[in-house]
């Protein structure tokens, strides 16, 4: 047997012994389901969620490609493929959702020093520390580089003052990676640093923002004379913009993949909703005008899925392509939800109460939530700017 075949047998065997039955396809219908984000404040409805996270974290398989010395799985690409396939085969739940994994870890690997990597990566991988992202500010949205939260050099530490906004799940997070101004006299892009801040520090506070969906995934985060040790600076002083941009690419990729993946597998898709509410005529959606919209949409979705596949086959080069995926993926996801709501008629606009079922109420909330997808992580317009300038090399205005 080849090494890879051996590895597959090992993985199968390990999953068989270590993946709790309630974390797999076929779990009892009444199993409490956790959305596992880890961290110091985590609460689990199902103890198996914690067990599954701990076991996967111990193997380093929540970030399988990261070297073992930083707590990762130390696997190569072929091995990761096998791991994913075997997890898929038993319908294993994702052990951990994490901004640490999706955004921070990749830039720590690239820009962090040895101490930072050894300190932070294992805790991200094991889900011990939950991270949030401190980028946008009330006065700095699309013009992110104008940010004003300042970090003053006080000799042995930085003193941080200012406010961040749209910090996802800041109220549930333990640490924040933040862009701060350290060079107030430098040109705006050259005076920014990338700082890691423990939110248990005195002076850090958060306040949730209620969105149009009624949910509060985002917060405002305040820094009031927060003392941050010097060793928490990632990269050089005033070189944070480079790191910030790199991290945004990871974020954009994740948002576009997430939006699409979330929709494609779901049973409640546009087609079944349209057939349910408009009726079927020999297997076709009865309303011809709506049907034609659905067809157009589903074909674009097919082509977009093929484009994700092609990018992977090409080896996922071109960073600006991340902007295309972010732009197209989020806009497509908005259109998908608009179609699902339209297909459902009145039942697609339910807010609360017992006259509508949960999936209908959730659809309303999900539809409203998608409106933020094309704003967070760089608006669609910013992505189009990036494509114009970096891919098409059109001149700046």
């Amino acid at each position, binding site marked *: 047997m080849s090494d890879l075949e051996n590895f597959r047998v090992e993985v199968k065997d390990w999953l068989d012994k270590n993946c709790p039955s309630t974390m797999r396809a076929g779990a009892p219908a009444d199993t409490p389901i956790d959305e596992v984000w880890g961290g110091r404040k985590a609460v689990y409805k199902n103890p198996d969620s914690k067990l599954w996270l701990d076991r996967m974290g111990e193997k380093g398989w929540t970030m399988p490609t990261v070297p073992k010395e930083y707590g990762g799985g130390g696997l190569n690409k072929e091995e990761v493929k096998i791991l994913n396939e075997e997890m898929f085969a038993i319908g294993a739940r994702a052990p951990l959702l994490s901004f640490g994994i999706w955004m921070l870890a990749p830039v720590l690997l690239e820009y962090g020093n040895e101490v930072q990597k050894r300190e932070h990566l294992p805790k991200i991988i094991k889900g011990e520390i939950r991270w949030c992202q401190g980028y946008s500010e009330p006065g700095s949205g699309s013009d992110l580089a104008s940010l004003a939260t300042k970090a003053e050099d006080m000799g042995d530490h930085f003193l941080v003052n200012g406010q961040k906004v749209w910090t996802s799940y800041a109220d549930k997070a333990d640490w924040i990676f933040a862009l701060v101004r350290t060079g107030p006299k430098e040109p705006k892009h050259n005076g920014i640093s990338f700082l890691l801040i423990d939110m248990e520090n005195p002076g850090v506070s958060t306040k949730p923002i209620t969105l149009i969906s009624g949910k509060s995934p985002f917060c405002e985060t305040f820094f009031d004379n927060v003392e941050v040790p010097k060793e928490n600076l990632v990269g050089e002083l005033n070189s944070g913009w480079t790191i910030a941009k790199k991290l945004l690419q990871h974020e954009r990729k994740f948002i576009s993949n997430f939006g699409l993946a979330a929709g494609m597998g779901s049973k409640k898709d546009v*087609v079944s909703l349209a057939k349910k509410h408009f009726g079927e005529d020999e297997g076709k959606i009865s309303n011809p005008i709506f049907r034609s919209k*659905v*067809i157009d949409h*589903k074909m*674009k979705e097919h082509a977009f899925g093929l484009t994700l596949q*092609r990018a992977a086959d090409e080896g996922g080069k071109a960073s600006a392509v991340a902007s295309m995926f972010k732009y197209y993926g989020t806009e497509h996801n908005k259109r998908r939800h608009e179609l699902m709501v339209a297909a459902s008629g009145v039942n697609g606009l339910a807010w609360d109460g017992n006259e509508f079922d949960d999936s209908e109420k959730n659809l309303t909330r999900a539809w409203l939530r998608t409106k933020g997808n094309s704003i967070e992580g760089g608006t669609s317009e910013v992505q*189009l*700017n990036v494509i114009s300038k970096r891919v*098409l090399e059109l*001149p700046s205005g």
Partner: protein
Amino acid sequence: MKLILNEEQNYLKETALSFVSEKTPVSHLRGLRDSDDQLCWDKEIWSEMVKLGWSGILIPEEYGGSNFGLTGMSVILQECGKTLTPSPLFASGVLGATALTKFGSEKQKQKYLSKIASGELTTALAIDENSHHSPNICELKAIKDGSNYVLNGKKIFVVDGASADIIIVVARTSGEDDDVGGLSMFLVESDSSNLKKVKLDMADSRNYANITFDNVYVDETMILGEIDMGLEPINEILDVGRIALSAEMLGSCEKAFEITIEYLKERKQFGVPIGSFQALQHRAAEMFCEIELTKSAVMAAMQGAEENSNDLQRLSSLAKSIVGETSHLVSNEAVQMHGGIGVTDEYDIGFYLKRARVAETILGNSTFHQERYANLTGF
């Protein structure tokens, strides 16, 4: 299925690009049009293409081809599309070669395939009878008379029909006008008695003909495939054609887009390049995204054909439909972004617009393929 080209396919693509850049820039098509050339393609150019082996790419080696596969053929057509290069490659090297390779008898293959590969003869596929591609509708009848079949009826918009030596005719041998079962194919020599060709003048200046059959006698040895074989097998030929044509259309889109982006960088108004205006930048970026999606759909269809995917019909319709829509977007925007010069005959961009629309109607426009995709998927 990997959505990337292998080394040989990349090499073919590069060869084709340097060939068309050097030999057949858009001025080549313009020249043919301005001289009112009745062939609408150039014999010298065609024989050079044949020498490069392009005409035999879909033909098995024992009949003089290289059997290199549809992806190889498609990337060549994609590069031809970049300069709107006219040639019999699509009608003969794709449609004719595929029809004969898939359904020809041993004798027919011996007789015709090597000649298609060597460029000695060219073919055309006569299928449409209406202004819209609808292959299930066929009123042209072939009725048995001894060892002959007698063909009566009319085919329209036959691609390269004005020049082809052999016309592959889809004819009704049983059933009603829209019965998909009673269709058969015949190989008909274009100089047969009672066969009348009228060359069409289309917007894209390429070679098309309407062909009338008024008691055309065809020997039964010229039946291609089975009598009453029906639409399903014929669709296999059409899908190969649709995929190859999608690749050509993609190439035209890519080039029209490239020309437009260059223009946005050069053209100055208000003292600055117009490409610095965000209104134009965003539209250009959106086109970029649509072209990327189109590339993926075309690539998936080509590779699906290579691998005999059982999803090929859907992939073919996805490619042809999306490339049609992207062609609309890109050709219209290309003209608009060029401003006044974009609507002059002197400038090349108008040729891309004209070709885009005509090519879209060949073997089914976007609407046709959306409906087909939807029916195959269960929408």
